[in-house]
């Protein structure tokens, strides 16, 4: 939702620091926040990295095994399958929704908001956003029900239109399970880029479009060269936040497929959870969690750096 903190606020007016106050006493207010933060975030974070270098069942003393877990991961087909599936989820949560969201935003802005009034545009925007307000795991439950092999909505629909041969156990078949989850995620995600892009479009000066029209630019050229260019910061934020969300996906996999059939839909988060709480391979689970965290934090770091550099230019 409002992960827009990643949208830079550098361009807002810096308050004039007329005097530098020798103000002490503010530091005290950090104490509750920082204490909780150290105890519940920093300490567990560091511990998790430590655990990843051990063999541990969760009871007794962890046994230090150095990098053995990481070596094991490199040769583990399920480890790689998890990340491969995460990449596919990035297609479902980032790439497809960003493209559809961009097209919808432009159509809503161009054809509806400008010519039929903002009422229609707001109504449609709210409608497309609706899946986003539901807990993602509940959205997964809705779709699991739709994909039911017996009597499910999708199979009933296919039967009704004469495509009975296409009916199948969508989530129980290794070939269709992940695409089915991806379909649900696309449906769930579309509203997010749409809303962000529509607010970004309000910044764009309509005169730029007029000028492009006079210069003979067609609709598609305008979309690519003006719209996409102008809302680049919003696109970057959507891509970053949804990619992180895709890498962290857990609930939909838990609720729809439990990673199965076999390991067809397992993802990094589910793999870590399973190692922690199902098979008590705590050290190995921590390894997966550490790798995942490293990827996410590096992405965030480079994004922020790129954004800062762009502003300095």
């Amino acid at each position, binding site marked *: 939702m409002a992960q827009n903190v990643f949208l830079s606020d550098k361009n807002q007016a810096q308050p004039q620091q007329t005097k530098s106050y020798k103000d002490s006493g503010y530091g005290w207010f950090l104490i*509750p926040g920082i204490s909780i933060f150290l105890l519940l975030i920093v300490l567990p974070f560091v511990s998790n990295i430590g655990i990843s270098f051990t063999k541990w069942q969760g009871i007794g003393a962890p046994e230090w095994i150095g990098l053995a877990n990481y070596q094991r991961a490199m040769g583990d087909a399920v480890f790689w399958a998890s990340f491969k599936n995460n990449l596919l989820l990035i297609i479902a949560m980032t790439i497809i929704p960003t493209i559809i969201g961009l097209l919808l935003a432009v159509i809503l802005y161009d*054809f*509806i908001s400008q010519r039929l009034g903002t009422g229609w545009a707001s109504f449609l925007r709210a409608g497309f956003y609706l899946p986003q307000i539901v807990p993602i795991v509940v959205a997964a439950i809705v779709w699991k*029900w739709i994909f039911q092999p017996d009597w499910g909505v999708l199979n009933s629909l296919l039967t009704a239109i004469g495509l009975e041969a296409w009916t199948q156990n969508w989530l129980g078949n290794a070939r269709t399970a992940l695409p089915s989850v991806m379909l649900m995620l696309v449906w769930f995600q579309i509203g997010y880029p749409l*809303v962000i892009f529509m607010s970004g479009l309000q910044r764009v000066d309509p005169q730029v479009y007029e000028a492009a029209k006079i210069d003979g630019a067609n609709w598609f050229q305008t979309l690519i060269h003006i719209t996409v260019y102008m809302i680049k910061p919003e696109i970057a934020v959507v891509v970053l936040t949804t990619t992180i969300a895709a890498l962290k996906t857990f609930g939909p996999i838990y609720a729809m497929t439990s990673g199965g059939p076999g390991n067809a839909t397992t993802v990094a988060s589910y793999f870590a959870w399973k190692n922690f709480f199902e098979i008590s391979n705590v050290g190995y689970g921590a390894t*997966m969690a550490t790798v*995942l965290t490293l990827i996410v934090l590096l992405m965030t770091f480079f994004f922020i750096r790129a954004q800062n550099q762009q502003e300095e230019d």
Partner: protein
Amino acid sequence: MTAHTSTEVSVKNNRSDALIRYGALLALLIFLLLMLLPFFMITINSFKTESEYLANGPFSLPSGFDLEAINTTWALTDYSTKLINSLLISSSTALLAVTLSLFNAFALGIGRIRGRTFFLLFFLMAIALPPESLAYPLYYLFNQIDLYNTRLSIILITAALHTAFGTYLLSSVFRTFNQDILESARLDGCNKLQLLLRIVIPLSWPTLSVLFVFFFIWTWNDFFLPLIFLISNDNQTVPIAMALARGERGMVITTQSAAAFLGVFPAFIFFLLFQRTLTKGIMSGSSK
């Protein structure tokens, strides 16, 4: 003559313009209907009996308003308890997270204490942090202090995670706080606590309430950590209960639909209640 032609062209343009306009509207409305179809399906099928579903399939409208599926699922999942848990956990978490964020941001945004860039970067990284990397050590820690499987455990953890976001957002809002007001409060001999309580909180109330709504809804929707930390029935939240309902005995196609419906319904209520706040909040990052 020239004038005549140009009018003709513009009439033609207007006509094709209108065609495109209403064509686009129609296409969007059809797409919207498709998008909302899943919600419509679970709504109509939660109010059918199982035999009616099996006889007429999912697409027929319910012949009556049968509450059997809803009632069965409600009882099976102990839905009233789950609603109370979700409300309690989400509001306590939101309140704690807003308070902690406010204190942090007061020091970093208003107080501009030394090292604030470091702190802000620290919080920014924490926003992106996957909870997977905290889950097991937290599980172990809360077991040690006998708080595992309590609502308090998830309130504390979730509040800490949300505080990262809140601190970052509020600090940047507070940076633009009217310096004259702060200055005159100082001259009037306001101490720091009075400054916070009498000046900063009242003036930033709208932002704080938006933040509260966000935290409330995020906590309500949360799944990964609550699944780990709330294992007994008395503690669980709505999303957890609905995800686990499937495994219960006696779940049939209509009760499964009802479980989805009961999961969706509170979210729709929040949407209606908070729609303005939420859309305003979504813009808050970019409009600045």
